[in-house]
């Protein structure tokens, strides 16, 4: 496959589970500085798509290139090292650690066995942890055991744990699920703030939220792309209305 100018280039990607094609011959291109939202009905293959990109699921055929590096042959941690960060659908944070420790553990230094034994928390890293905590609205909760955070705050913390690694591709699976209206607004503002200098791929169901953040929207249906374009175009697409948005 040829190299492209896109940050993320997915071509002819297929994954088949016992003959069922969850993602079927998919082509998707995401630019740098772009915030792309993927929507679609349940079972459309949205989460599977993220699983494929971050290496959790291995593809059956096709190619995923990130900055012209082939990801399908790398292991999970190598994909992270290549600059890809992924938030899971249910907030995955370390509940037995404090907010501060959650961010410290995610800091991209001391990633080997020996490196982590010799890891020293410098003032620079300390400052970075506090900066990120402020970015994700958790500056006042650094010492709190993260199990005690609200659901929305847990979502933010996980986003913070990704941001501290400064990934060039950030993938968020339903970042506002379980959030209050206020929290949703704050998250929209956060996402608009962090999408410069990187590409962001978001899966979301809440159409109001999508309208606030999306540069471009991709609609998946049965593992294939049903429509792609800006919010307006997609919302008025008769196929999309038929299978997803409803009349």
């Amino acid at each position, binding site marked *: 496959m040829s190299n492209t100018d896109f940050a993320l280039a997915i071509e002819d990607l297929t994954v088949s589970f016992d003959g069922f094609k969850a993602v079927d011959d998919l082509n998707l291109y995401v630019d740098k500085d772009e915030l792309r939202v993927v929507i679609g009905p349940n079972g459309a293959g949205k989460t599977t798509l993220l699983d494929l990109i*971050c290496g*959790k699921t291995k593809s059956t055929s096709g190619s995923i290139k990130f900055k012209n590096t082939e990801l399908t042959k790398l*292991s*999970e*941690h190598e994909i*992270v*090292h290549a600059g890809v*960060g*992924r938030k*899971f659908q249910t907030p*995955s*944070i*370390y*509940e*037995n*650690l404090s907010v501060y*420790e*959650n961010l*410290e*553990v*995610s800091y*991209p230094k*001391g*990633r*080997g*066995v020996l490196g*982590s*034994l*010799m*890891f020293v928390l410098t003032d620079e890293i300390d400052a970075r942890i506090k900066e990120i905590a402020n970015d994700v609205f958790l*500056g*006042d*909760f*650094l*010492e*709190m055991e993260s199990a005690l955070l*609200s659901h929305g*705050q847990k979502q933010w913390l*996980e986003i913070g*744990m990704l941001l501290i*690694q400064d990934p060039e591709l950030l993938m968020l699976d339903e970042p506002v699920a379980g959030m*209050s209206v*206020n*929290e949703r607004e704050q998250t929209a503002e956060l996402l608009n703030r962090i999408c410069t200098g990187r590409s962001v791929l978001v899966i979301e169901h809440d159409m109001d939220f999508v309208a606030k953040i999306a540069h471009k929207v991709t609609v998946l249906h049965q593992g294939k792309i049903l429509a792609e374009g800006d919010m307006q175009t997609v919302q008025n697409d008769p196929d999309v209305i038929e299978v997803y948005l409803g009349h």
Partner: protein
Amino acid sequence: MNFVYERMLGGKNGAKGIIILALLILVILPLTLDLFRLNLVGKYLTYAFAAVSLVLLWGYGGILSLGQGIFFGLGGYCMAMFLKLEASDPIATKIQSTPGIPDFMDWNQLTELPWFWEPFNSFGLTILAVLVIPTLFALIIGFSMFKRRVGGVYFAIITQIIALILTVLIVGQQGYTGGINGITDLKTIHGWDIRDDSSKYILYFINAFLLFGVIFLSRFILTSKFGRLLLAMKDKEDRVRFSGYDVSNFKIFIFCVSAMISAIGGAMFTLQVGFMSPSFVGIVPSIEMVIFAAVGGRMSLIGVVYGTLLVSFGKTIFSETFPELWLFLMGALFIAVVMFFPNGIAGVWEKYNKKVFGFIAGVPLINKIVSFISGIPFIAKAKAKALVNKKTTPKLETPNE
């Protein structure tokens, strides 16, 4: 110095625990117990190595190994092989048909020393073997399991089976291993008789210091980023993996460290008890080690030492009077701890120590000792720094929404 205080002793609470334990093991017990009982404590303390190793592996890493006896036994056997060779010099064994080889080999019609016994003629190589062989074995097991992402209950079962296989192997190959009786009649290291009263004291203290060394090493590991990663992996392994860590390497490492620690305990066991047998390798001793850790508190390096001592003493006392009942009692103890005190003795201590200390602090002599210790320059410095840190860390606030 601050590094030693914070990272090896574990800050104020850790240092307090270490000092109390050191007083007990190094001063109180040797002064109050007769040699027979002290030697018994020394034997129990060798099990504490395995219990400490389980704090790293199980308490923090969340990896339950039901086969720590494998490594305890391997370490013990390495040491026993050296001692046996020294005890089997040609003069002492001149009535055998092949003088100069261990007696059990002669009984099994072996006429020369097997090749893998040769290195154990050297004490230096033996020490190396005690440390390296169990670690390498753990590396092989760990690599083949963790790289394939075998974990949880499967890991526990497989380690248990390996412990069983090893026992069967040792019992079956009695010409090479001494069989079910193990390796017995151990006497000297380079002529130094390990059965003397004075040697028993020396070995007790070597064992105690090694145990503290191992606790310091473990504390260093647990207070590093590695320690926090272990806790993180125990909770959300996938999150760690997708944060750019090769999770299997971390598990393999901690498994190897825990194997090495258990092996040191095994070697010290052989030295203090004077023999090694398959009954310290198999499933039962391995599960006992898990019970020691559970009763002591699997998250506490100090707690498990108390857990080991208490359960072992209990075993000695009860198994003498009610041999049939003991196993049931042990099982009940394990269930009770898991159900009511998931953090074991250490957890109970954490809950009530303020009351106890409040009472003790009222005693004038103790007060003087405490103020003397906090007067030692590096401790005072670290204390002052800890106070400053406490002030600068942000205060908790309740969420505003």
